[in-house]
């Protein structure tokens, strides 16, 4: 016998996580694109993301209270609680980038954006596949995706060094360099949170809770080298 009603509700939760995920993906791409074009306009996206997150959280609590999930079901629901929180924080990073765009006022970009949109694209690509792995409970994919975080870290390092050359050449560019560094940092953090989602997926399937790798350590190692 299967628990048909409960199974349907679990599937609904997964579908809702995918919806939240695509809202976050769109927010990241849109804010970076707006920055690239210096197109400043108000957006409701972050508020919608937060609203969706609370909707899912509420649904999770109802399922925990009414269905008494155990074992795999419990790991799935508890981990989903964590995953939607990661997604909501990614939404905040996108909002942070939009805020920088606003704060830059009518000042032009220090340089045309090349690696920053690449970072955004890589983030979204990783996130999309991480959420697919979550829905399909695909451990192999969940283990493979975090490795790609190195590419995002490498792009971040490149942006960092490039911006530093501007600052060294002309300290008056400090503020504009800082803005872009902040944007790149937000995008670097998105990939770290994708790793967290993958860790949760592995936990849901195997019951083993372990950290895949600490991206911040990798970053500082590269800075030293």
């Amino acid at each position, binding site marked *: *016998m299967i*628990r048909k009603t*409960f199974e349907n509700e679990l599937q609904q939760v997964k579908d809702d996580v995918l919806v939240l995920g695509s809202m976050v993906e769109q927010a990241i791409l849109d804010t970076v694109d707006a920055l690239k074009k210096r197109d400043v306009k108000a957006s409701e996206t972050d508020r919608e993301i937060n609203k969706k997150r609370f909707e899912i959280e509420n649904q999770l609590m109802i399922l925990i209270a009414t269905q008494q999930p*155990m*074992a*795999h*079901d*419990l790991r799935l629901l508890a981990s989903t609680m964590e995953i939607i929180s990661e997604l909501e924080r990614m939404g905040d990073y996108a909002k942070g980038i939009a805020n920088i765009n606003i704060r830059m006022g009518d000042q032009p970009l220090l340089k045309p954006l090349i690696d920053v949109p690449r970072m955004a694209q890589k983030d979204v690509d990783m996130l999309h596949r991480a959420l697919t792995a979550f829905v399909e409970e695909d451990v192999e994919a969940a283990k493979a995706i975090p490795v790609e975080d190195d590419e995002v870290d490498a792009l971040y390092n490149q942006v960092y060094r490039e911006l530093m050359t501007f600052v060294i050449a002309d300290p008056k560019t400090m503020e504009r360099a800082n803005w872009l560094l902040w944007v790149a940092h937000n995008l670097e953090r998105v990939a770290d949170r994708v790793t967290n989602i993958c860790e949760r997926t592995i936990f849901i399937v195997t*019951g083993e809770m372990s950290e895949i790798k600490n991206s911040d350590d990798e970053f500082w190692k590269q800075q030293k080298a």
Partner: protein
Amino acid sequence: MTKSNTDETEYVLETKDLNIFYGDFMAVTNVNMKVQRNKITAIIGPSGCGKSTLLRAFNRMNELVPSSRIEGEIIFQGQNLYAPEVDPVEVRHRIGMVFQKPNPFPKSIYDNIAWGARIHGFKGDMDELVVYSLKQAALWDEVKDILDQSGLALSGGQQQRLCIARALAVQPEVILMDEPASALDPIATLKIEELMQDLKKNYTIVIVTHNMQQAARASDYTAMMMLDKEGVRTGTVIEFDETNVIFTRPKDKRTEDYVTGRFG
């Protein structure tokens, strides 16, 4: 049966290749498990998988069914419970039992406790024993002024605690509980579960329960029983582990299906 010098060992009961029969029918097959001292061990599993049969084997209660017999051993404090020289009455004294339906004697509350102790040759201060047992069973405050009233006049939950007090009065080492709260409302159930947590400081408890939430809430270890083979009605322990492992990351797919409510 004398108290052996293995009293300090970690395990109070251990089954070795245990098979339990009713006539030719093998009800329980090949159980190897260890019951840890001062812990609560739950036995869970679907109806008819042999949970109560296994529990009753721990104090030779199955022998009240004439055709029953066992193969293998149950070691209690270092001694085989089924050795020929062992007196089953003495076994049931040291390993007490509480049943699903509260079954107080049709006697006063006081006598419900005193009677068993008297039969077992208790020579000490009976008043003191009655007070001590009722306090241990968390019933004293509710009955201290009505000790001469019939035990049958109490509520279901109070009757069950009276039965626990009666079991404690003969100073057992292990208490077996067969669905002790299934006939009780949630508040009385909670009282029994809280009581179990107090009792395990001094006793070892083995409980059979259909209520998985109860096993999850109240026990330290859980034994998952299931019918071993398709079509063959014989039960066995398919997984035995710490309760928190059984309910969060069981190893056996059948345990997973059972605790998540996907019954076969």
